């Protein structure tokens, strides 16, 4: 197991050094793809071989939990898909050709930081790893060096850093609560914080949890701290948007779930879960409002990410085996589906030379195959059957019925319907609406690099929707027992 984790970290490090050393764009893109495939294999092997319980390795430095491994797998999948897609997409940015090795080195580094964070047994180091993801990805967001991307990158880093500073304060408070029993110096680990929680004063624990919830919630993109998300997701290159949405948000969610576990051990489960449910429901409301009146294709997908992170938050907030299993399944389905949507949006953006959905008309006429996949992806992302998100959303709804926060189920159902209508209305206009404005016809041919990754997401998404594999269910049950 240790060897596999090491492989997961060393492969990207090696790839980054080689990419920077050789500095040739073609070489960089293939090497990055190779690194992504290798990490995908390593993370799959890790999740298959690791026993499904809590394991502490390397002198209490590393922590393996089923949820952590699951998130690493999600990151690896999105990283592999994004690397594949990036080859086709980034070749279109002819102005940036010289800077491509830098881009791939950053992309690889971004994945590396996300492979590190879930394994950290020390909440402080986990916080630092999350902070590093922000720094690396800010440069990726600002890669295209236009006014908008510079603005988005700036907004991203300033809002997220401010949010994360709240999380740091929360971590200090958790540690302080521990010193009341364990003495002034003890090693800060998730396990220690959990073991002292039962005897700690409840107001202190609650304050600490709320600070970490708001802090990591900023990074997850929960409303009302989501304001950086639509900008960063829409202004970065499409592969980066997919990584931000499908991989990064889950990695930060892990922190919230772990701190919620500490709070549960401290006997304040209900307050913590309710706080998470309120933020989740609020995210759905905000996302619903902005989805209905959206004009930018990638901004639409970004608000959809706010929505889905809200749903994942609701899943963990409702709790219980069904809630946690649903949330974990939703993480994977969302990672796949959102990658598909961003790849499609990136393709259309390049083809129509505009980010505005009002310019993208008669998509099916010009791009019959890509258009159909994108349209199916849109149906899937709104939670319609027979795709994976339908299964996970139903599981979360069922968990909500059994939870004390039953009001949130009503909010969730209502807003899912609003979002379904609002989201598909945009697609209806793009597919069946009036012809192109000013005869704005796309003439670009999409390379297989840009369409194959879309197939690679749609097929598993459909399979996961038709069949929730029993081994995954068992895995989720075990994860829920560890997390609780």
């Amino acid at each position, binding site marked *: 197991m240790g060897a596999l984790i090491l492989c997961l970290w060393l492969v990207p490090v090696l790839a980054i050094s080689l990419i920077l050393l050789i500095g040739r764009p073609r070489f960089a893109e293939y090497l990055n793809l190779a690194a992504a495939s290798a990490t995908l294999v390593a993370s799959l092997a890790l999740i298959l071989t690791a026993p499904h319980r809590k394991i502490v390795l390397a002198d209490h430095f590393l922590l393996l939990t089923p949820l952590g491994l699951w998130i690493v797998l999600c990151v690896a999948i999105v990283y592999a898909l994004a690397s594949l897609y990036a080859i086709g997409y980034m070749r279109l940015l002819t102005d940036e050709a010289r800077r491509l090795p830098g881009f791939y080195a950053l992309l690889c580094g971004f994945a590396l930081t996300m492979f590190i964070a879930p394994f950290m047994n*020390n909440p*402080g*180091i986990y916080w*630092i790893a999350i*902070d*590093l993801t922000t*720094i690396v990805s*800010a*440069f990726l967001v*600002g890669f295209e*060096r*236009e*006014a*908008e*991307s*510079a*603005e*988005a*990158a*700036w*907004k991203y*880093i*300033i809002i997220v*850093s*401010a949010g994360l*500073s*709240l999380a*740091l*304060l929360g971590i*200090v408070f958790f*540690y*302080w609560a521990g*010193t*009341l029993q364990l*003495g*002034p*110096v*003890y*090693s*800060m680990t998730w396990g220690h914080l959990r073991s002292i929680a039962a005897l700690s*004063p*409840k*107001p*202190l624990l609650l*304050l600490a949890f709320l600070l970490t919830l708001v802090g990591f919630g900023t990074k997850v993109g929960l409303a009302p701290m989501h304001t950086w998300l*639509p*900008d960063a997701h*829409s*202004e970065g290159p499409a592969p980066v948007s997919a990584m931000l949405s499908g991989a990064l948000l889950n990695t930060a969610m892990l922190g919230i779930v772990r701190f919620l576990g500490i709070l549960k051990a401290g006997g304040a489960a209900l307050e913590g879960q309710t706080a998470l449910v309120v933020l989740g429901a609020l995210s759905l409301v905000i996302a619903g409002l*902005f989805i209905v*009146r*959206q*004009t930018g294709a990638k*901004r639409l997908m970004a608000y959809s990410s706010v929505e889905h992170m809200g749903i994942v938050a609701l899943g963990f907030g409702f709790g219980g085996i069904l809630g946690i299993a649903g949330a974990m399944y939703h993480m994977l389905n969302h990672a796949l589906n959102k990658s598909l949507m961003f790849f499609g949006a990136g393709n259309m953006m390049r083809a129509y030379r505009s980010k505005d959905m009002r310019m993208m008309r008669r998509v099916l006429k010009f791009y019959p195959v890509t258009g159909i996949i994108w349209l199916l992806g849109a149906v899937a992302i709104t939670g319609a059957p027979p795709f994976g998100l339908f299964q996970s959303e139903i599981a979360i709804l069922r968990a909500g019925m059994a939870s004390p926060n039953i009001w949130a189920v009503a909010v969730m159902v209502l807003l899912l319907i609003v979002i379904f209508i609002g989201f598909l209305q945009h697609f209806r206009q793009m597919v069946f609406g009036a012809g192109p404005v000013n005869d704005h016809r796309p003439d670009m041919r999409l390379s297989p690099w840009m369409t194959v990754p879309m197939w690679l997401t749609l097929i598993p998404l459909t399979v996961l929707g038709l069949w929730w594999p029993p081994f995954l269910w068992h895995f989720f049950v075990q994860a829920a027992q560890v997390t609780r």
Partner: protein
Amino acid sequence: MFILHINPLATSLFSMLAIISLILSFVMLGSHWLKNHIYAFALESWTIAGLSAAVGYFGHYPELYVIAILTALFRGSLLPYLILRLADRLHLEREFTAFLKPSSSLVLGTILVIIAFVVGRRIGHSLHTADTIIVLALTCMLSLKLIGFLMMILRSEAISHILGLLVIENGIFLGSQILVPGMPLLLELVILFDLLIIVLTFGMLMRYLQLHAGTTSSRYLQKLVG
């Protein structure tokens, strides 16, 4: 908690240093000249370094001397120098686009200190301790945090945002020296280092902003809405 068992002279010294830091944050809040800001921030960092050393001396935590030296070097000297250089390069002298007058900002800051005090007292109460230094440390910590956020909200110059963030981080550092002086050394070192990287990143992004967006004031960064 060690703080309960040390002599009153030491606690009053800690209190004084904490209060000086709080007052310095008001200096920042009340001035629109960026240079004053940066100097006040540097002074605040040196005060916190002094606090680290004092806690290390009275509480017998020798590793806090290392933290004190690093705080003085990094936060007290290197970061202010980097930010000064950035301000010079971008020809920024003062914040022109603040939303409120300095006097109104000061009043708002006072209200935030009261809120911080109420929260601090509540937490102190739940610990069943009559010790005032804990309440004071919590008050200063949360006040600096809130004042930092207030500075970020009221001002629109990118440099002011960085300074607001640094005040927030100073608040966390100040509080953690008194409340959890035994917090793992490695962690504090890494956080110091992390801060340096963040400021360097900010510097680079600010130059992008100046170059590609033509402004560093968030008031004119209005392209991305909705």
